[in-house]
C-alpha cells in the first residue's frame, strides 16, 4: 500500500505548515485591516504575523527534502518556457513571494514601539493586502496541485482546493487564538482588557464560521465524488466512507474532532457569551488543538488515500 505514497509525510507536513502560514497571515491581516487603529487588534495581529512567518519558513525548510534533486530546484523558477501549465511552477513562485511578504510584514511588527499608528502603518497595510492576495493563491494552490490530477480520482474534485483553503484559514485562526490564550496577560486598563476579551470572542467566532463552511465543503466533497463523480471517483471515495480503510480516522479525527467539536465549543462558549466573560482558558486551548489536529489528519487522509486509490478498469 505504502509503495504508492510518492508524496508522504514530508509533503503533508509542508502543505500543512504552508496552510497554517497562509491562515495565520489571513487572520492577522484581517484583524489589522478591520481594526482600524485599535491597539488590541494590533496586538493580536502581531501573533498572527509571527506565526505566519515561522510556519512558512518551517514549511519552506521541509520543501527541498521532498525533492530528489533539491539543488536543481532553481530550474523551476526559471522555467517560464514550459512551466505555465504546471501548478507546481506557480506554487513555487507563490511560496517565495508570500514568504517574502510575510517576512517584511512580520518585521513591521518587530521593532521597538511598533504600534497601529506608527510611521510604518501604511506600509504594513499594503503588505497585509498583498499577503492576503498571495496567501489566497498559495492556499488554493495546495489543493489545486492535487485536484488537477485526473489520474488520482480521490483528489480530482473542484471542492478540494476550497477545503484545503478553508482548513488553512481555520488553522490560522486556531493558531492565533492559541498564542493569544498562552501569551496574553490581563491588561491593567479595564477598558482595554474589555476589548481584548472581544478579540478572543472574535477569533472564536471566525473559527465557528470557517468550521461551518468546512462542514458544508466536506459534505459537498463526499457528495460530488459519490453521487455525481465519475465511476473512478465514486469508487475512490469509498475509502473514506463507512467500511473504507480511512473512514474511522477521517470521520473521527478530521470531521468530529477537527470540525464538529470546535463548532460546538465555539457556539456554546464564544458567541453566546459575547460581551460577558472572557473565553474560558481551556476553550481557547482545546478548540485550537482540535482544529490543528483535525486539519492535519484531513490532509493526511486525503493525500495518502488519494494515492492508494486509483482509476478503475482499463
Amino acid at each position, binding site marked *: 500500500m505504502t*509503495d*504508492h505514497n*510518492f*508524496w508522504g509525510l514530508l509533503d503533508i507536513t509542508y502543505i500543512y505548515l504552508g496552510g497554517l502560514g497562509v491562515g495565520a497571515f489571513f487572520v492577522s491581516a484581517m484583524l489589522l485591516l478591520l481594526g482600524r487603529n485599535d491597539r488590541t487588534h494590533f496586538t493580536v495581529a502581531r501573533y498572527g504575523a509571527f506565526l505566519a512567518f515561522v510556519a512558512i519558513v518551517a514549511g519552506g525548510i521541509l520543501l527541498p527534502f*521532498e*525533492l*530528489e*534533486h*533539491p539543488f*536543481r*530546484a532553481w*530550474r*523551476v523558477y526559471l*522555467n517560464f*518556457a*514550459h*512551466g505555465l*501549465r*504546471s*501548478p*507546481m*511552477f506557480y506554487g*513555487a513562485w507563490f511560496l517565495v513571494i508570500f514568504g517574502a511578504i510575510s517576512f517584511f510584514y512580520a518585521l513591521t511588527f518587530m521593532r521597538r514601539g511598533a504600534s497601529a499608528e506608527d510611521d510604518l502603518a501604511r506600509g504594513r497595510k499594503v503588505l497585509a493586502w498583498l499577503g492576503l492576495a498571495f496567501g489566497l493563491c498559495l492556499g488554493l494552490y495546495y489543493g489545486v*496541485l492535487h485536484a*488537477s*490530477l*485526473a*489520474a*488520482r480520482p480521490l483528489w480530482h474534485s473542484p471542492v478540494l482546493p476550497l477545503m484545503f483553503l478553508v482548513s488553512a484559514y481555520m488553522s490560522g485562526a486556531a493558531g492565533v487564538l492559541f498564542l493569544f490564550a498562552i501569551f496574553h496577560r490581563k491588561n491593567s486598563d479595564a477598558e482595554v482588557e474589555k476589548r481584548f476579551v472581544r478579540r478572543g470572542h472574535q477569533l472564536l467566532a471566525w473559527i465557528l464560521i470557517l468550521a461551518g463552511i468546512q462542514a458544508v465543503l466536506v459534505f459537498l466533497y463526499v457528495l460530488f465524488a459519490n453521487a455525481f463523480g*465519475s465511476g473512478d471517483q465514486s*469508487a475512490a471515495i469509498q475509502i473514506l466512507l463507512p467500511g473504507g480503510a480511512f473512514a474511522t480516522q477521517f470521520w473521527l479525527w478530521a470531521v468530529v474532532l477537527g470540525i464538529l467539536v470546535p463548532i460546538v465549543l465555539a457556539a456554546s462558549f464564544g458567541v453566546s457569551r459575547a460581551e460577558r466573560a472572557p473565553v474560558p482558558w481551556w476553550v481557547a486551548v482545546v478548540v485550537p488543538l482540535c482544529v490543528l489536529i483535525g486539519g492535519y489528519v484531513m490532509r493526511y487522509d486525503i493525500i495518502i488515500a488519494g*494515492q492508494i486509490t*486509483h*482509476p*478503475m*478498469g*482499463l
Partner: protein
Amino acid sequence: MKDSNSKPDISRRAFLGGGAAVTGAGAAAALGGGVANSAVEGGAKKHYVMVIDARRCYGVQACTVACKAEYKVPLGENRSWVEEIEKGNYPNVTRSFLPRLCNHCDEPPCVPVCPTGATFKRDEDGIVVIDKDVCIGCKSCIQACPYDQRFLNEDTHTADKCDFCIHRVSQGLQPACVEACPSRARIFGDLNDPDSEVSRLIATNKVSVLRPGYGTEPNVYYIGADHTGENDHYAEFSYVDVKTNRRFAERR
C-alpha cells in the same frame, strides 16, 4: 551491438536546435537502417506507435526481462510488465495477458504538470522522454499518469519510464522488448508511414487503447486485449483476478 550505441542526447535544447534529429538520421543511415524504421533516413516527422497483439501473448515475460536488462531498471521497478487476467466461473474460464508500457500519449497528462520541463514529448517522433539532468524528482508526473507507468528510479533519483528505446530506434533498431518477444506480439513502427506494418495492422484490425476516457490519446494500440478490470466481478458476477509482476501485485 549495445556497446556501439551511444545514448542519444534527449535534452530539449539539442532537439530544438534541430541538429540532433539530423545527426540521428545520419547515424541510422550509416548503420543501414532497420526493418521497421525505413523512414528514418528521410528526416520526416515520425509518429512512433506500438501495436500489441494480445492474442499472441502467452505471458512468457521475455519483454519484461529484456527491458529490465536493457536499462538495469532497479529492483522492484519495471518499465514494462505483463498483466495476467484470469476470469470466469468454471467451466467458462479464460486467461489472457496484457503487456504494459508507457503509451507515449498524444495528450500526455504527465507533461504539463512538470515544473522544470524535464519531461516532454519529442516533436520529431512523439516519444515522451525524461531529461535526467533536469528532473528534480518532484514526482508530479508520477502522480499524473493515469497508467501508473512512471516510477522513481532509485539510482538516478529521477522519474523514469519506458522511452520506446530511443537509443535503439534512433539507430534503426527495434525496441528491446519487441526484439525479445518470441511470438511477435509487439510490433513497433511509424504510423506516419502508410506502408509500415503498424499502419497496416491498425487499419485492418479492431484495435483498442487503455483508459480512453482519460483523453490521453495513447500510442500503444492493442488487438484482442481483455480490458476486464479487477472490479468488474461486481458487474459480471464472475471471478476476476488481475495480477501484475511488479512490486505491487495489483494493477493501478
